[in-house]
């Protein structure tokens, strides 16, 4: 049996270290104002996935284990310890003693079982259902006794309890009636009075004014304490103000009217924030290159271009490889991210140190032209642009989202770089929903440049991206049988990768998967931005992380200078 020790590194201890290094004494009390761009879609994280709902969940709920967003390690949280069976399928978790919900009711194993039931009851509509399944099958959860939970995975699952970071534990006594009535979807919507909500997190929702703010007060029953025994959270109150405009948000930060943003500083705002930081008005931190990069992909659904003469080359690997060779990633990083980015060549960026595998592609327009010539695209009329065998121009339409400067700048660079090798790109910017409809619903598109974010750094958690049957296998999702041999091979490898108990074996398998991906390049990556975060000078004891919300993922530890 494998047993995880309870004394893992915690967010608090590292945060305390940070405070000690800066010679600032962390004291309880005070309040902080953060801002978000849009308000949550619901207070119920089981039914809604957006930045607002996520923040509410982080502030007001707790999970069995927590992935430390700064270290990516699993930390004991509501579960103090756990043990695994020999085959790695069954886990037994012991709950932290004496934990109570914010309404005073004790946490028991029944609440854990109930939480799984509620998520699964929502079926495919619930955003957490997929995240709590392995290979499309649910986990079996049972209460062994009041403080012990048994979780059995359908197959051996190497990341193990890491998956539990997806599930905030909800109070059975508050929501059981809704579950029984089949109304869990309607429970804890935005119209629910704050007094009816109860959680295990560091804060409780005290007030919500639509379109304006959410106010969270300290949860006096929160179960965690700082290393020195101080009751957490440190803050008495956290107000989250809704500020839709990014410029206003930054100006408010500079003016000291808010303490923290819940997202990173945009590249175009970096210079202004740097000036403010130099003037001592804000704190600015460079967290390094991010985990995610925007990407270009073609519609690889078989038959998507039936009847179109360009079908002969639009879905060919050579086209995508030529694009990868033709785009100068240095120019791309300088133009799109104003230099604050690093070249990337696949879905993993160098930030994901544990899983990154990279095969750099040199900028080589001549090689790109050769590849295009191999699929029949050459300059047949001497105008410098390429044509196919029928004399039709090498031309495709690239869709992206309107109103997102990074994406709009990116497609402009891609268009200009491809023009140099004789390929014409017609850029079409669409409103966000219209774009999603094109590639996710109607699937009537040629190519898209967009953001496809991973939900975790562990590839096993991103099975829906890698597996051909997955919903996030974005170039040709939800396939009944793999459309290509290389996708079939990735399907095989990812299943083995998920089940392999040895981390070195998992890395080897994942390297193979990334190599196959690089050989066929279903998605072309160019650069990943560096992540900068800004906060007020009075906000302390923060351990910034690359993933959002970078400054507030461990809200219990955050404090302010008194």
């Amino acid at each position, binding site marked *: 049996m494998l047993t995880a020790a309870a004394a893992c590194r915690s967010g608090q201890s590292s945060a305390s270290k940070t405070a000690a290094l800066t010679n600032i004494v962390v004291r309880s009390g005070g309040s902080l104002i953060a801002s978000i761009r849009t308000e949550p879609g619901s207070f119920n994280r089981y039914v809604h996935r957006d930045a607002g709902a996520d923040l509410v969940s982080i502030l007001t709920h707790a999970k069995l284990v927590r992935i430390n967003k700064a270290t990516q390690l699993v930390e004991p949280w509501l579960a103090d310890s756990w043990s695994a069976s020999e085959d790695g399928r069954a886990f037994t978790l012991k709950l932290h003693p004496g934990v109570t919900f914010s309404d005073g009711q004790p946490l028991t194993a029944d609440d854990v079982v109930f939480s799984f039931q509620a998520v699964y009851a929502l079926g495919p509509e619930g955003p957490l259902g997929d995240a709590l399944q392995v290979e499309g099958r649910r986990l079996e959860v049972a209460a062994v006794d009041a403080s012990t939970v048994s979780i059995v995975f359908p197959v051996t699952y190497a990341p193990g309890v890491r998956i539990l970071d997806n599930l905030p534990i909800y109070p059975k006594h508050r929501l059981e009636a809704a579950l029984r009535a089949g109304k869990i979807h309607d429970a804890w919507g935005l119209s629910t009075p704050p007094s009816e909500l109860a959680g295990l997190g560091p804060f409780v929702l005290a007030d919500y004014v639509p*379109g304006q703010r959410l106010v969270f007060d300290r949860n006096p029953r929160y179960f965690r304490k700082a290393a020195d025994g101080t009751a957490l959270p440190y803050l008495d109150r956290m107000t989250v103000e809704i500020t839709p405009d990014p410029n206003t948000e930054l100006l408010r930060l500079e003016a000291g009217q808010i303490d923290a943003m819940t997202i990173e500083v945009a590249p175009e705002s970096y210079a202004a924030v740097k000036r403010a930081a130099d003037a001592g008005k804000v704190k600015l931190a460079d967290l390094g290159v991010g985990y995610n990069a925007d990407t270009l992909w073609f519609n690889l659904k078989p038959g998507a271009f039936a009847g179109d003469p360009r079908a002969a080359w639009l879905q060919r690997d050579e086209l995508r490889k030529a694009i990868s060779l033709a785009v100068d990633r240095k120019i791309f990083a300088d133009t799109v991210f104003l230099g604050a980015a690093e070249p990337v060549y696949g879905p993993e960026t160098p930030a994901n140190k544990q899983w990154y595998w990279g095969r750099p592609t040199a900028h080589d327009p001549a090689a790109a032209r050769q590849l295009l010539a191999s699929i029949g695209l050459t300059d047949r009329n001497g105008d410098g642009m390429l044509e196919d065998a029928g004399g039709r121009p090498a031309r495709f339409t690239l869709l992206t989202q309107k109103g997102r400067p990074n994406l709009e700048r990116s497609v402009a660079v891609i268009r200009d770089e491809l023009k140099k090798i004789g390929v014409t790109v017609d850029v079409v910017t669409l409103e966000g*929903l219209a774009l999603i409809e094109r590639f996710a619903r109607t699937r009537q598109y040629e190519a898209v440049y967009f953001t496809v974010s991973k939900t975790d750094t562990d590839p096993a958690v991103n099975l829906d991206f890698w597996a051909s049957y997955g919903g996030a296998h974005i170039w040709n999702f939800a396939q009944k049988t793999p459309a290509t041999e290389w996708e079939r091979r990735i399907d095989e490898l990812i299943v083995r990768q998920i089940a392999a108990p040895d981390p070195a074996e998992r890395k080897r398998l994942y390297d193979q998967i990334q190599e196959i991906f690089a050989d066929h390049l279903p998605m072309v990556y160019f650069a990943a931005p560096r992540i900068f975060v800004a906060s007020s000078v009075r906000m302390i004891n923060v351990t910034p992380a690359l993933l959002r919300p970078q400054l507030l993922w461990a809200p219990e530890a955050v404090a302010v200078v008194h």
Partner: protein
Amino acid sequence: MSRYIVRRLAFAALLVIVVSSASMILARLAPGDYVDLSLPPEASAEAKAQARARLGLDRSIGAQYLEWLGAAIRLDFGRSFLYDRPVRELIPGRAANTAVLALTALAVATLVGLPLGVVSGSRRGPLSGTIRFISLVLLSMPPLLTSLFLVFVAARTGWFPIGGIGESVLDRLHHLVVPAMAIGLPLAAVLERLQAQAMGEVIGAPFVLAALARGVTRSRVVWHSALKPSLRHVAAVYGLIVGSLLSGSFVVEVITAWPGLGSLMLDALRARDIYLVTGCAGTGALFLACGTLFSDLALGVVDPRASERVQEAA
């Protein structure tokens, strides 16, 4: 007169119904829906179908529209997907915020623009030239820039809060300054230009020249005799300005995070929250219709000829 007002109110009701209906149909016809936004792009077709059925988005536009219309007669305007609340509960608070902002901006515009228009229209010289120049600058700046500029000034000086609405009455007044100026100053420039032009015309009228010939002082002639007839032009557009202001200023409300009807409508449009879009558009139309009525009545007060036309129409 009362018949006229009743007729105009009936027209307002018709306008609200037409605008609301058109908004609802257009919001349904636009690509994407609330389910596309609330579920991740990779969500299964089954999950999306389930969500659409729950929200009633699986029905035809016609069926959905008729059901909404039937409910709207009972003053039930549907439930916002985004806020999970009845639209009827959401609109009044936001409309009130917009009304406070609009009326404050209108007061600023009127108190600043009209007197300056009278001054610049009734005399020549460096003062009127300066007023005209400032007005032209304000007129040529789009609301986006004006808002950003004022927000920037507020951030740099720290004189006024940026964003939000505040809690106490004093706090609210403090928060009101930046958005009210952002809307009010360009509007003051519009009123100044209109009033200056009108005053320029009236100042050359025979009755003004006669008064001056009788020895009445110029300032008395301008502020007592010429002012009222010159207000006709401004009064004619005043209602439209009131109506459009009350419909919500998208840009200013978003940039200054003022929780009014404009920002609510924008959120609703982005999320394809069709019932909320419909409610906001209907309220905006109602405000516009009331503004136009107010304009006609105001015009009647300052211009007896217009009043006669109103009587004839009644």
